[in-house]
């Protein structure tokens, strides 16, 4: 049986003037459904490009990307939008909440455009923000904002949850709490969660670790027994 997510020889170039910059080259990996995946690598290794392409925000120049039997790499612009709309949940490093909407409204912003979304209250309860639902983002702490962001992503009931440095703008403790939330979500809902980070310490909690270096996958590790977040230190 095919894997849930599969990258086959995926390459992406950017043209900067006359120079051709290779962002990623011939990347191959597979991810199974329900896995908590960490993609790790130093800055400029091509993590973000990978995320962009997997998240349907960008397209690759070569290779094929498969998700749940669909070839994402063959989608046109409109199909990509639909893909983002229904299949992908994003968690941004800087939360990207709409400042002018309350926590609940921010969640509803996403759920409103979906067909089968979860009620905002339920999702916010799930991420532990039951009491802060009516607050505006500016009235929330960073961790709380990130929880709203996660709730917004989860409310859409996506196939995969893509998290870009979810702890990058958070302090250690809060970061850990967010990671826990993500891991719990993965375990409880069976969603495929992909976390992109430069922090190698996090790899311990993943089911699958994909290491990226200079635009290629240097190593894919499978953890039989992932360490709970609480036990990880960095």
């Amino acid at each position, binding site marked *: 049986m095919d894997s849930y997510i599969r990258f086959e020889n995926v390459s992406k170039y950017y043209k900067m003037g006359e120079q051709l910059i290779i962002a990623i080259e011939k990347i191959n990996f597979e991810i199974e459904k329900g896995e908590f995946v960490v993609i790790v690598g130093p800055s400029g290794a091509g993590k973000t490009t990978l995320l*962009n392409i997997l998240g349907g925000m960008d397209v690759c120049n070569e290779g094929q990307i498969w998700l749940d039997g669909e070839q994402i790499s063959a989608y046109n612009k409109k199909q990509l939008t639909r893909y983002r709309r229904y299949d992908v949940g994003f968690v941004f490093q800087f939360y990207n909440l*709409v*400042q*002018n909407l309350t926590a609940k409204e921010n969640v509803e912003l996403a759920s409103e455009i979906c067909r089968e979304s979860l009620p905002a209250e339920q999702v916010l309860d799930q991420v532990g923000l039951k009491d802060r639902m009516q607050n505006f983002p500016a009235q929330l702490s960073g961790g709380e904002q990130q929880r709203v962001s996660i709730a917004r992503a989860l409310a859409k009931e996506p196939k995969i949850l893509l998290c*870009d440095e979810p702890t990058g703008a958070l302090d250690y403790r809060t970061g850990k709490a967010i990671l826990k939330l993500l891991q719990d979500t993965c375990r409880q809902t069976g969603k495929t969660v992909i976390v992109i980070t430069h922090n190698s310490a996090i790899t311990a909690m993943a089911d699958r670790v994909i290491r990226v270096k200079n635009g290629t996958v240097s190593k894919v590790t499978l953890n039989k027994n992932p360490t709970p977040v609480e036990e990880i230190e960095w």
Partner: protein
Amino acid sequence: MVIKGDGVLKRTYLKSVLRSITGTIARFIAILVIVALGVGFLVGLMSSTPDMQYSVDRYYDENRMYDFRILSTLGLTADDVSVLRDTEGVQGVMPAVSEHVLFRSPEGDTLVGAVTGLDYTVLEGTGEDALNRTVLLEGRYPQQRGECLLLRSGVSLGLQVGDILTLSEENSDIMLREDSYRIVGIADTPYNFSIESETSSIGGGKVQITLYLGDDCFDADCYTDIFMTVDGASELNSFSDAYWELIQDKTFLIQEIGRERVTVRFEQLATQMREELEEQRRLAEEEFQKQEALLEDGRVQLEEERAALARAKEQLDANAALITALTEAVENGQLPEGSFSALIREYDEGVAAYTDGLEQLAAAEKELTEGEAALAASREEAQEKFEAAEEELVRQEIQLEDAKIQLEDSKLLLAQLKTQLDDNARLIEILEQLKEAFSRNDLASAWKVLEQLKEILGENSELVHLLESALTLGQALPERLEGILDLYYALQLQYEEGMTQVADTERQIAQGEAALQEGKMQLEEQRQAAETAFSQSEQELAAGREELTQNRTLLEETGVVLSENAESIEQLRPITEAGMDSAEDVRQTIDNYQQGQTEYDRGLVMLSESEAELENGRIRLEEAKRDAESEFTAAEKSFSDPSEHRWYVLDRNANVGYVSFESNSEKVDAICKVFPVFFFLIAVLVTLTTMTRMVDEERIQIGTLKALGYSDGRIMFKYLLYAAAASVIGCGIGLAVGIRLFPSVIWNAYSILYYQPEFYCRFLPEYAIGFSVALVAATLLATWLACRSTLSEVAAGLMQPKAPKIGKRIFLERIGFVWKHLSFTKKVTARNLFRYKKRLYMTVIGIMGCTALLVAGFGLRDSINYIIFGQFGEIMKYNVTVQTRHDNETNPHNDLFAILDNPEQIQDYLLVHQQMGTAVESDTDVYLVVPREMDRMEDFISLRTRVGKHSLMLEADGVIVSEKFASVAGLKVGSRFTLDDGNGTEAVVRITGITENYLNNYVYMTPDFYEKAFGQAPEYTTLFVKAAGGLEQQEQLSELFLKNEEVSSVTLTDWTKESFSNMIRSIDYIVLVLIVAAAALAVVVLYNLTNINIAERQKEIATIKVLGFYDREVGSYIFREISLLTLFGTLFGLVCGIALHGFVVQTVEMESVMFGRSISWLSFVYSAALTLLFSAIVDLFMYRKLKKISMVESLKAVD
């Protein structure tokens, strides 16, 4: 854009500024454009009035427009001129002779002309004393008598070089010598550069053509005008206060001179006048005597006429009885047709014939009676004759009968004889045979025969016995037989003879019978012939009798007719004797008599008229004597008091062109002050929002610079430089375009009112620099404000992303049911609207300005359009105005009314008293209109209120005035004002109504009220005419009218309409400028706002794109806000537009014109549609930009 900390700060700094500019070129251009618009509009419009005034002032100076114009009640002399020339501070002195006269154009139109006579060299504009110089457009200057120079205003009347103007016969007491003047040139002059014409006391009341010609064309002993310029005046702007101060000073000086000169002139004239007065008095005396003599002649003639009339009366009376009879006869139809004498003759002849007839009838009767008697006699005679003849015949018949009877007897005897003979014949034969037998002696035979005889005679007869015996005896024959034979023969002979005799007698009887028959027949014939002859005579007589009877009847009838006619004929006899031979003659006689009567009556009337006339003449003469006396006394008196005479020292305020141009250019100034305020405000707002955004964007950079040790001032300097660069370049562009464009457009718009000189667009530093500096300073201030708060933060804080502006709950959220029904994008829109108030104001004000400008522009067009459709369609329903020379009520002119009563050309007309008067308090020219028939007024002019359109009725004790006049004079219904009727009579009248009216000022009143107010009856010299057909037909009609001597002028409303259509064309320029300005305003504001909105929310947009919003959804998420603001702005703009339009219209209006106050709904639609179109264009443009936003932005840190 991190600046490296090395040495060459300045260059790096500039580079950074330059990079900011190139990096945000759209933002830079936005500031630049709005500043350009602001400055262009502001400076352009602000300098319009100074430019216009400058251009006209320059025109004045170049052509040496007068500063003073002197008029005198005593005329001006060469001495006056030289005194003025010698006066200190006086520059040029130009004496002139001028007057208003009526001309006839080559087409025969009467034209009011203002004629000015100048020295030929002065006319050409040479020398310092040549003032109010003309600028030749065509042809040449006049060089001799009979030539003239026409001002351009005349060209529009169809006059051209080469045309000859003739003096109208109506002129009286004029100074011009020549009868006709050839136009040799056409020119403009600053003295008369307004299309608005001067008023005149002659003709239609307005000067139509202005002519310049040599002063030798005038027969004048003094000048009428002296024009002057003074030192230092030309250097000053004619519209400035400085100029007017100078003029004020000089006025006193000149008035002083005037007082002296008038005294001198007065003394001169007084002596001269007294002598002249004496002469005049003498002449008047002679004239009066002549008049008296004439009156006496008149009286004598009157007496003669009276006598003649008396004679006529006598004659009439003499004939009266006859005429009465005749009239009766005529009326009763008693008079036969045909010649009376013939009738009488006929009658007399008839009577004679009747008498003759009677005589003849008697004669005929007698003759007839005699005839009858004769006939009876002859008939008797004939009868007798016939009876005699008959008797004879009868006798003959009897004889004949007798003969017949005898004959019958003879015959009978004969028959008996015959029978005997016949019976004896056998015996005789046997006897004979016996004799024979005896004679021969044959006795055997004799016995045989005797046997036969015995059979016949029987055996016993004696003879037989004798014979037997004889024979037996043989004796000879017995004698007895012989004797028997003889006897028998004798008897036979006798019988024969008897038979012959019978035959003869028979024959005689037959002859007698035939003769009798013939006699009878003859008698019968004779009797018949006689009978025929008698009956013929009888018939003839009967016919004669009948004829006679008929003749008698006829004659009797004739007699009756004659006797019947006798009376009328007898009646005719005297008429014929009176010399009338027919009914026609009689009627003629009656007519003649009646005519004589009428003539006599008329004569009587005429006589009494003549008497009255004579009496009037006598009274007039008396009056004239008195008048002359008082005139002479007055004249004497007038020359006894020099203080009544003075100089009138007029300045340019007495010049129509100057005054109207000054007021119009000031109106422009008023408008120009409103419009640019918008732009100024918007420019500052745009700069403020733009720079705030820029500073926000570069927050981290500012923090970095601050951390690197740059001072606040230096950091801020970059943004100030940026703003300064944009606004200075904007000012440059705005000035370059605005200074030329706007003044020129406005100048052109006024070309419909003036014959304008060359226009000079100047760079006016006080405006150009002043406003530029002000706007640049304002943008810099806005920039400073934008930087200030950011710069006050510490460097570390700045390095941090700016704390996001807290989301706020808005009022709308409290209304739960509304809020819950809004979608998120709508919620965001609602919150954003109130979150960024600066942008809200900017957009709403900008869009509002845009819409308001459009509404004002289109509305202005509507307003002028309404002058045409409202004034000439709804209010003035007539299309031709005819001015006549005399009152049409008391003195109707038949030929004129023949035209007017032709229904093919004229639908209807109204007699009106129309006169140019003045409202004294406000010094407003008004037309006094007094319709003759009040009830037909509304068919020609609709009097109604503008608001509500309630129709107004003229009341007996007040006037209705036009709206514009009421507002200019500040009058309301119920107010009173003093009205001068144009002839110097004043009356205070009360306003009972204010009527909608757009062109000219009118005061309407009833004839009775007019008479009450001004003490004289209205003179209906004006006709409002509704002509049929189009312009061409109306122009033909106009020509027809003008051919009539009674008509002095004809005006077609279509001509006026046309001039307003031209005005609309020039207003279209202004509307176009407004549309372009509005478009620029809308585009700049919306573009800028959207640009900022998008830039600021780039990350948000990227995020929602990542969340899977389609492009369309993203677009509506962003644009809904702007669209909503645009909609609000448009709505406010429509409302503000009405106000702006109202202001503009009232400012632009001239004194005698009221623009329409309402804006058509279509203009609102256009304005809103254009605004929305501009907004849509911006949105479309920005949509493309929106699509280009990369989702990768969402991954970036907060900027």
